């Protein structure tokens, strides 16, 4: 039964998870802590790990909580449940655009006016993470400039800056 309520909880989270990762994390916290599956401090740990492991943050959090609650089966159920409704919505949007001859260009252009502030708020919440070292900000500024003015692959930037951070940690800088 635990698996069923896990599936249902994450399916519901998927329905209201507009606005991408960080919004979804807030919703998951509410749902999971209220059900007593996890204490608030443990949830904060899970989010910290979800944020630094590869993949979408919300999906990572779902997989991890599923694992804590229901083992391997729980993690698979939670991962699939959280994306089930979003995938239905994608199919629906594609059908609507085709059937109703909605001008996709105009629609997505209007969405950009709202997408840009959404990204800005993400930047604010990323930057407000407590206790970021000075080198993190230096790496942030350098990565931003490199991404804007060169054609360097962002994956290389991520791996390279990670290596710099690891070396600094190894030498206790």
């Amino acid at each position, binding site marked *: 039964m635990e698996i069923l309520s896990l599936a249902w909880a994450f399916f519901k989270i998927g*329905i209201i998870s507009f606005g*991408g990762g960080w919004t979804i994390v807030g919703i998951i916290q509410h749902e999971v802590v209220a059900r007593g599956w996890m204490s608030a401090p443990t949830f904060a740990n899970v989010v910290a790990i979800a944020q630094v492991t590869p993949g979408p943050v919300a*999906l990572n959090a779902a997989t991890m909580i599923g694992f804590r609650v229901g083992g391997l089966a729980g993690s698979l159920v939670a991962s699939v449940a959280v994306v089930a409704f*979003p995938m239905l919505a994608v199919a629906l949007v594609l059908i609507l655009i085709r059937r109703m001859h909605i001008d996709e260009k105009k629609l997505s252009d209007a969405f950009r*006016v709202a997408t840009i502030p*959404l990204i800005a708020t993400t*930047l604010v919440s990323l930057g407000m993470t407590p206790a*970021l070292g000075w080198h993190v900000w230096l790496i942030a500024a350098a990565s*931003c400039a490199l991404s804007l003015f060169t054609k360097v692959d962002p994956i290389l930037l991520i791996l390279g800056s990670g290596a710099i951070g690891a070396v600094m940690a190894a030498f206790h800088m």
Partner: protein
Amino acid sequence: MGKATPAEKPPATFLSLFWTFFVISAVTIGGSYAMVPVMATRITRRGWMDEQSFYDLFALAQAVPGPTTLTTAVFVGQRLLGFPGAAAAFLGIMIPPVVSIILVSLLYAAVARNPIVQGFLAGSYGTVIGLVAALLIRMARARKWRIHEVVLSLLCFAALLVFKGWALPIVITTVILVRLGAMIWKS
């Protein structure tokens, strides 16, 4: 779609799409807005889509719930190769995090407390912040702004900061006002 690119780059197949999204998902840390620039670079470099069309699909992905990385990838896959493309994108994005999280859950204590791992994560977190900032600048420069759109965008930003759990109604209201504004502008 089946448009030939001048550089004669190979078109997307199920496997190449799957692999592209798999790699993106496997190495990108920090969530949607860090992954989107990586995705844009990889997709345009393979000649599958120009940057503008990619960001149009990204904007469209904001219209549906769910992780934006996943919904953007599925829209891109669908555009390039129909249903098989969408399936390839879905699997490519889903498999790495699910597998890595299960591993991390098993090794939780050893991995999370290792100072070198933490150093790596802190360093790459810096790049995530930088990439999100660059994405913001690039997207803002890529569109022609009318005055009412600038005002609406700033209002939307303020509203999102104040009413944290209300992203959806705020976004929908902004989009409706932008379209209304465009109609008034024309008449």
